[in-house]
Every structure is written in C-alpha cells, then in structure tokens.
C-alpha cells in the first residue's frame, strides 16, 4: 500500500475537535503505527497510550472509524475507508486528553464485582488439582484471556445508559472466578453481581462479544451469572 492516509484525530478532553493529519501509508501498517507517526513526526503533543505493541497489555484501545479496537493489532488496510481513518478515545470513559481515557472507574468496577481471587478455606499448601475437562474449568477457561483493554466497555449501551453498571469485562471476570474451584468468595460475589448494576441489566446486545479482540464472549458469562444469581435468589441465598 502506498500513498497518503488522511487521519482525523480527536484533540482535547471532553470538549475538543477532530484535527486532520496526513500520514504516509505503508505495507503492514497498524493503526498504532499511524498514531505513533503523528506523535513522532507531526505533533509531539499528541497523547495516547501503548506499551507492549503485541496485543498483550490492553492499553492501546481506541475508537477506529467508530468501532472500538486494539490499535496495535489492527491493520490499517482492514479498517481504512477510502484512505481515511477517524480516531477517537474509547467511548463510555472520561477523556483525559486526546486519545487517552481515564480507566480508573473501569477497574474500580472489577473490584466491586468481586474480581479479586479469595482462597477457599482449607485450600492447603499443595497445588489444587483441577481436571482440564471439568465443566467449571472449561467455563472459566473460556473467559480468562481478558487483557482489560476496555473495548467491550466502550461498545456497551448498558454502560452508557446506566453509570452503575459493572460492565462486560468485570462481570466476565466474576464469572471466571465463580467457576474457579479454589475460590472461596462465591456467595459474596453473587450478591455483588446481581441486580441493576450487575448481570440483570444486560440486554444481550452482544456488541461486547463482537468487538472483543480476544474473541471472548462476555454475554455468555453474564448469562451464566444471571442463572447463578437467580437460582441463589430462588433458594433464598442471595
């Protein structure tokens, strides 16, 4: 690919505007390459985040032509429209400056969802034996590759409509822990993820699952939480 990309980039905080830059197009160019080119060669005041550049750290997510994506592993040729890119900070999160958003609330919600592992009493010093094909192990495995990039959170309407909603990533985390036989905080976690701030607010729109760069399915995890909390409520244990 040769020629020039026309790239509109959000500049400012909540109030701001799109500024257009011209970036040389290259073979195998990622969206993060484009942003880095702007910052290094056109405007050193541009703020954005990245660390690993290989899809592990989850820090470089942005809105690319209206879709939340991890920019380090998104090739320009797949997403540019007529040689144009529009880059904005992730939706549903407060903008600090340019393409950098405040992730504090996003991670605070992981804590509120009971996202920390709590060893079950009597776990002992030895390794826990968990059969790889046990249903709970498989359910946990389906969700543990989350890198916390915030793409699902930015794609979710319920997050936008209900500021208390814990969001797809935090609920997915809670579901993996609920299926971890070594964890001892299941009952408290069910209380934390039930109701209007939790799993029952989800409408299964599934933008989270569609856009998750790791191809996880938070909607399925949330459906699991809905069933588990409803069963607990029916037993009088919620």
């Amino acid at each position, binding site marked *: 690919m040769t020629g020039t990309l026309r790239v509109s980039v959000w500049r400012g905080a909540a109030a701001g505007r799109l500024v257009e830059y011209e970036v040389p197009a290259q073979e195998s160019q990622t969206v993060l390459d484009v942003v880095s080119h702007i910052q290094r060669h056109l405007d050193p005041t541009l703020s954005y985040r990245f660390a690993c550049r290989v899809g592990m750290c989850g820090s470089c997510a942005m809105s690319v032509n209206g879709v939340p994506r991890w920019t380090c592993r998104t090739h320009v040729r797949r997403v540019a429209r007529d040689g144009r890119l529009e880059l904005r900070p992730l939706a549903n999160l407060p903008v600090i400056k340019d393409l950098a958003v405040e992730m504090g609330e996003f991670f605070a919600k992981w804590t509120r969802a009971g996202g920390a592992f709590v060893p079950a009493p009597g776990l002992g010093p030895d390794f826990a034996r968990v059969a790889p094909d046990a249903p709970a192990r498989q359910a946990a495995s389906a969700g543990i590759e989350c890198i916390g990039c915030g793409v699902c959170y930015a794609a979710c309407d319920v997050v936008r*409509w*209900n500021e208390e909603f814990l969001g797809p990533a935090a609920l997915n985390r809670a579901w993996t822990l609920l299926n971890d036989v070594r964890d001892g905080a299941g009952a408290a976690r069910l209380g*934390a993820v039930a*109701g209007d701030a939790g799993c029952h607010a989800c409408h299964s729109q599934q933008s989270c699952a569609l856009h998750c760069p790791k191809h996880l399915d938070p909607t399925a995890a949330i459906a699991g939480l809905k069933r588990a*909390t409803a069963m607990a*409520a029916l037993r009088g244990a*919620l």
Partner: protein
Amino acid sequence: MGARGETWLWLLQRATAVVLAFAVLVHLATLIYAVRHGLSAAAILARTEGNVAWLGFYLLFATAAALHAGVGLRTVLREMTPWRGAAADLLVLLLAALVAAAGWRAAFGLFA
C-alpha cells in the same frame, strides 16, 4: 430497590415471558382462526360466554401481560429517561395494576 429486588424483577419478567409465550401463540392462532371464519360479535361471545377455561386463560394472560409490560416499561424508563427511583417505581406499579384491572374487566365481559 436493591440487588435482591432487581433479581426478583428479572425473574418475574422471565416467568411472565414463558407464560406469555404460550398465551400469545394461542392468541395469534385464535385471532387468525376467528378472522378467517368471519369475525363477528356473536361468534366471539359464543366461544367465551360461560366458558371458565377461556375466562381463566384471559385472566392469566392479562395479568402476565400487565406485569411483563410494567417491568419492561420500568427498565426502558430507567435507561432512556431521567425517571428512576421509588416514585417512578410506584407510578409503573400503579399503571400495571390499572392495565391488569382493565384486562380483567374485558375478560369478565367476555365471560358474562
């Protein structure tokens, strides 16, 4: 309303949905049958008057529909308007009760 209350509302919404799934199928089938066989007041009333089974069906149907609509409306209001909290909940509950009452009135009208 706390997490437990919201969970019960969610369960109520699903339980009424299951009732409605069957009731709406019956309703749609009756509707298409009635229309195909010439919709008339006499034909409708001949089917329903004094028939306890139809009365029971319509009472259950109307109650489930009123509850289902109430919970759904509450969710839409909370998500898409600034109306939330106990006052809005009470208002929706009142609306659902009125709709259920109107439904029962119609069901008894068909029966008697």
